[in-house]
């Protein structure tokens, strides 16, 4: 499945990121979670194809956004990049070293360079440990002894993320959600990583607090030059944070481009649909196209043949069911803008024609409303 979906060298030659060195790259990475069934002997009866052959590169110091709907495999991708999960297929290369199936000992030096920030600040901090212990423990595990001592370093980190260093001895329950997420950020920074995978770091927070954490992450990313993989479902936040964005659908990357190309000149119908579905806090936003897809994302146990989006796509033809479109730079795209589609859309988000309403109930209701 992954043979026809390569051209990672094109990503390397893209604008702006051309000079930078590749930090982490994945080729044809896949994760199939087995499903067991049967009695009395359990046998594998299928697999959830959470991630099914993706190619991505993260460059030093850049921020790569990963967007998609729930169940599209974006979190699984993040977990494989940090090697919390071992891929069932494909290859992960970190600074030229193949870490796809690396063992515990082989990974040890790399673990400290790839850190993760989790979605839920309530379940990702041990309630029985003080903040100091939580932030200190990565240093202890990795035997890092900063000059001035670990405790001093923890205080510095607390100050860096905007918490009072005197809160060193407090427990997580004494903090609010936003502050807890700051503790999570401090912990991820403790080892001075080169790459941070942030898995929906703000989606559990209140609107007014989200911006605080986004600004903090942005400051950290710019000042310390850490590469970020920013996983989120909120397209506006990803646009704000990431220089390059990859859109995932049902275990595949369908489009990857620099921020400007993806948001202003998207080519894949799914990207169009996503962008048109984002509600904007603007009462007169009529110039945007209006696309309403039908139903939900299909099950990853039994994904559609060919192009996975074809079951919800308004441009699907016979070819889409038989040939899987490769992720390539199609004509009319800028450098580094890759799209996996046989029949791409025009590169604009402006309204070009009539609304596309695929949802049968909506179409029915709107038809009756029009005739009245």
């Amino acid at each position, binding site marked *: 499945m992954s043979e026809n979906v390569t051209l990672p060298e094109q990503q390397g030659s893209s604008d702006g990121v051309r000079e930078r060195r590749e930090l982490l790259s994945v080729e044809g990475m896949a994760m199939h979670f087995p499903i067991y069934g049967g009695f009395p002997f359990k046998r594998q009866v299928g697999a959830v194809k959470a991630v099914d052959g993706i190619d991505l590169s993260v460059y030093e110091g850049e921020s790569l956004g990963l967007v998609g*709907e*729930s169940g599209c495999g974006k979190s699984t991708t993040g977990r494989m990049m940090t090697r919390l999960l071992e891929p069932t297929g494909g290859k992960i290369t970190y600074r030229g070293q193949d870490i796809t199936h690396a063992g515990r000992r082989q990974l040890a030096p790399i673990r400290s360079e790839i850190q993760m920030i989790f979605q839920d600040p309530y379940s990702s901090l041990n309630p029985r440990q003080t903040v100091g212990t939580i932030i200190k423990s990565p240093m202890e595990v990795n035997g890092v002894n900063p000059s001035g001592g670990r405790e001093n370093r923890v205080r510095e980190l607390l100050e860096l993320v905007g918490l009072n260093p005197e809160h060193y001895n407090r427990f997580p329950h004494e903090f*609010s*959600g*936003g*502050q807890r997420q700051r503790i999570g950020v401090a912990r991820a920074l403790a080892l001075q990583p080169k790459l941070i995978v942030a898995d929906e770091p703000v989606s559990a927070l*209140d*609107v*007014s*607090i*989200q*911006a*605080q954490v*986004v*600004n903090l992450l*942005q400051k950290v990313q710019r000042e310390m030059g850490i590469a970020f993989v920013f996983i989120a*479902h909120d*397209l*506006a*936040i990803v*646009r*704000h944070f990431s220089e390059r964005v990859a859109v995932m659908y049902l275990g595949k990357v369908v489009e990857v481009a620099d*921020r400007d190309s993806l*948001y202003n000149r998207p080519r894949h119908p799914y990207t169009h*649909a*996503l*962008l*048109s*579905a*984002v*509600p*904007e*806090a*603007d*009462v007169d*936003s009529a110039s945007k196209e209006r696309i*309403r*897809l039908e*139903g*939900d*994302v299909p099950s990853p146990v039994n994904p559609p043949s060919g192009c996975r989006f074809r079951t919800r796509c308004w441009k699907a033809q016979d070819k889409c069911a038989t040939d899987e479109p490769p992720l390539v730079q199609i004509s009319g795209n800028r450098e580094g803008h890759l799209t996996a589609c046989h029949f791409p859309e025009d590169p604009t988000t402006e309204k070009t024609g009539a609304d596309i309403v695929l*949802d*049968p*109930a*909506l179409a*029915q*209701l*709107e038809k*009756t*409303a029009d005739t009245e």
Partner: protein
Amino acid sequence: MTTLTKTEDTPAPTGPEAFLSVRDLRVRFSTEDGVVKAVDGLSFDVERGKTLGIVGESGSGKSVTNLAVLGLHNPQSSSVTGEILLDGKNLIAASEKEMERIRGNRAAMIFQDPLTALSPYYTVGRQLAEPFRKHTGASRKEAKARAIEMLTKVGIPQPALRFDDYPHQFSGGMRQRAMIAMSLMCNPDLLIADEPTTALDVTVQAQILDLLKDLQQEFGSAIIFITHDLGVIANMADDLLVMYAGRAVERGTVREVLQQPKHPYTWGLLSSMPRLGGDINEALMPIPGSPPSLLNPPSGCPFHPRCAFTEKVDGERCSGERPLLAEGRAAACHLTPEQKRTIFIDDIKPRLG
């Protein structure tokens, strides 16, 4: 705790159109740590066929208000005072029996998480049909026909087969559609939607929002739409109420509030939210601090500890005196209208792009 003695929020005159009108609503919960003033003197009106949007952070009292409208609070641990007039009838004084006749019939609710709101033990069809039979006295067969009709209307494929499915066999978007179908079974005049799309993906959210709008046109119900997403509000609502710490801080039509917001909290909400068309080099301007505890809300204006403009107000008014929310288009803030206009135009508007 506040220095306030008189009751604020002078009741707005109840127009003939106001279908639901809430006056000086107060909801209190007694807990081990003290009394939580979850809603503190809230008044609003909803007209037939219109949508009132309520925005606010978690803990601002938006859900509590609407549970109070349907009388869903445990009377043993909470006290609800004030007036809730549904078509002229005060629901606070109503007995449990009367409330049962109203709930699900004249007023219905769509909950945030359809998986927890639907019972896993009964089929979707049974959960749809039961309230309909109870309220209208319809036969089993009629109720089933009605349920299938509603499932078709909200776009569940093969509704006759799906009628006998359990909630876990539905996907997230379909469950929310089934919830909407359930709430519309008895043609309610008032529909309360409590964050109905927060748990859904954007593409599904867009479908559900359009569906609700179209259904409202067809049924003409009044909708109270609760959310924390200003984008969703801009799409859905006619009027808007911004809540903070159990009180309304700004009120107006959606256009007025989103285009000429007058309260510093609304400014904060708008400028802390990234936009698809915004300037990416402009840093987000978050609201400092975190929402207050309702056990011990700040004195005076509840927003003053997080507000950037308190020094523009003379003396200690912000921390000492609670600003009132006037009738109609208004914001509960001590800044003069002139100050608000200049601050918004000079400091806030350029950031919104």
